[in-house]
């Protein structure tokens, strides 16, 4: 028998392939974006007032001798013309060398390695916690009537309006200073992660919940849900298994932005709760005018954010490939 040329492809495999292609394109775009980011930060920070050599050699209390200044200038390549510095800078970047921090006299990569873990921990914990809160609140209360819905909606709106720095201070005062349920500082234990994670998660949960609730309510009125109900599935099963997958889409799209907001929030929360992390490092580096550290952290944050957005985009596609590319 001649085999027909009817190619019966595995739909799943096709989807994966499509995803893969998309990932490839996005990653390539991401690299270009990162290059632009690196260039932008390099030139922007060269505009900073104050002589970087003096900043390197000890700031306000150092009394560097002329020899020390000349040595430092050569060591950091600050005596060469700007264009040459830029090319050298790019070259070092490609090799993974982010330079030496002026304030800590350590390679920037080392600072990032030591501090990055804590921020990553905090961001992930906050995101997970936020989603837990969202699911809990929306799945349970969506479409149950005006009063419950109104109250839940109010709760969400208020949560979304809470600035995380104020919430952090309030939580610290009540739960750490007052009730002493959690330690007021530290980066090591799980207990020390709770309050910072909550102060980031609650406002975020408010945002995502609003969007997800709307979407869930719309979905619950769709015909296929009605079909599922008539087949005898329990209400909760209907909500979780069928409606949720479709309803999650706007929330997932928002998660990409959310990660950026969480990183911004981490800067403040790490300061308030005295946690290790690149957020607090960035803040101190800006205060001390430590160029390489500011650039290094910005780059890593940008890279992480771009990557996170790509992942979110892919996740979005995976959950529902029928969606067109989101215009916004």
């Amino acid at each position, binding site marked *: 028998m001649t085999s027909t040329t009817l190619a019966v492809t595995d739909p799943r495999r096709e989807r994966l392939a499509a995803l893969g292609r998309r990932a490839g394109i996005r990653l390539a775009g991401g690299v270009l974006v990162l290059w632009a980011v690196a260039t932008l930060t390099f030139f922007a920070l060269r505009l900073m007032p104050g002589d970087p050599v003096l900043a390197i050699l000890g700031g306000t209390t150092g009394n560097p001798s002329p020899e020390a200044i000349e040595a430092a200038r050569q060591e950091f390549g600050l005596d060469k013309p700007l264009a040459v510095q830029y090319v050298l800078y790019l070259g070092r970047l490609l090799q993974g060398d982010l330079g030496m921090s002026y304030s800590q006299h350590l390679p920037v990569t080392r600072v990032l390695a030591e501090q990055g873990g804590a921020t990553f921990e905090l961001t992930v914990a906050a995101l997970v916690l936020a989603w837990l809160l969202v699911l809990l609140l929306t799945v349970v209360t969506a479409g149950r009537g005006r009063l419950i819905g109104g109250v839940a909606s109010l709760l969400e709106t208020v949560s979304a309006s809470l600035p995380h720095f*104020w919430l952090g201070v309030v939580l610290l005062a009540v739960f750490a200073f007052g009730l002493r349920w959690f330690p007021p500082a530290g980066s090591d234990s799980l207990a020390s992660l709770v309050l910072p994670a909550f102060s980031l998660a609650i406002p975020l949960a408010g945002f995502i919940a609003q969007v997800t609730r709307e979407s869930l309510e719309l979905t619950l009125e769709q015909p296929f849900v009605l079909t599922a109900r008539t087949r005898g599935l329990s209400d909760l099963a209907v909500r979780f298994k069928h409606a949720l997958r479709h309803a999650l889409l706007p929330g997932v799209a928002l998660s990409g932005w959310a990660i950026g907001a969480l990183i911004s*929030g981490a800067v403040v929360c790490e*300061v308030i709760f005295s946690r290790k992390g690149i957020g607090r490092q960035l803040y101190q580096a800006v205060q001390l005018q430590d160029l390489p550290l500011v650039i290094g952290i910005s780059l890593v944050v940008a890279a992480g954010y771009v990557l996170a957005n790509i992942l979110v985009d892919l996740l979005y596609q995976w959950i529902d490939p029928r969606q067109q590319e989101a*215009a916004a």
Partner: protein
Amino acid sequence: MTDLTLGRALTPVRRQRRLSLPPLGASLAILFLLALVLAALLPGLFTRIDPLAIVPREAFQPPSWVHWLGTDQSGRDIFARIIHGARQSLLIGVAATAISMAIAIALGLLGGLGGARVDRAVGWLLEVLFAFPSLVLALLFVAVFGSGVGPLIVATGLGGAPGYARMVRGQVLAVRNAGYIEAARALGHPTSRIVLRQLLPNAMRPLVVTLTMGVGQAIVWASALSFLGLGARPPAPEWGTMLSMGRDFIANAWWLTFFPGLFIVLTTLATTVTGRYIQQRLEGRLP
């Protein structure tokens, strides 16, 4: 007419079963915002006490009939400072949003009207700006240009610009091929007039809601920067700065931190609720 066409083109079909806050909430929010604007323009109506008057003897007074919200570490009345701070905060919020919009309109028009290649370039530029979380972008800006109210406004404006720019660009793209635009072009109206009188107003209308909420967001961002000590410096009565100064005393005198923060929350809440209400009214005009 144009509104209807635009409305139908852009807003997805929505069920009116959407749960919302009753009009009571919206009225409260609008009232609050009006009171805030009034406080910004005429602080004397709300308080007679000088927000900068230092009275060491009366430091750390808890809320009382004399000092409604208590006093701070220098004996300054907190309610007075919050009222005068309303001007600072609103000014920063509105100015920053204005800057965001200016950048967004420029980029959005460029991208929407400039042709495919320009549009790709603008889109790519937006991606680059988007690669930074907003606070990081603001921090970079402050690192270069120093701290203070001026850089604070620009930094906050920059932080919000990418989001708006994307929206404006999307709107412009959607609107530029609408019937009435073509009609205007066929009638021979100059491009600038078409852009100014027809394109831009219709593109921006759905964004009014976002703008309203955006002012609240801008106030929060600016407060965050001041909280970190990179924005308005003490003794300015800016709410974020007040929050930061009060942080050390939270165990002894919680009112230093609580009330400025409360007002930030209320302002954000009010702008959000007002924005949603406006949105519903706009949609409500659908048949």
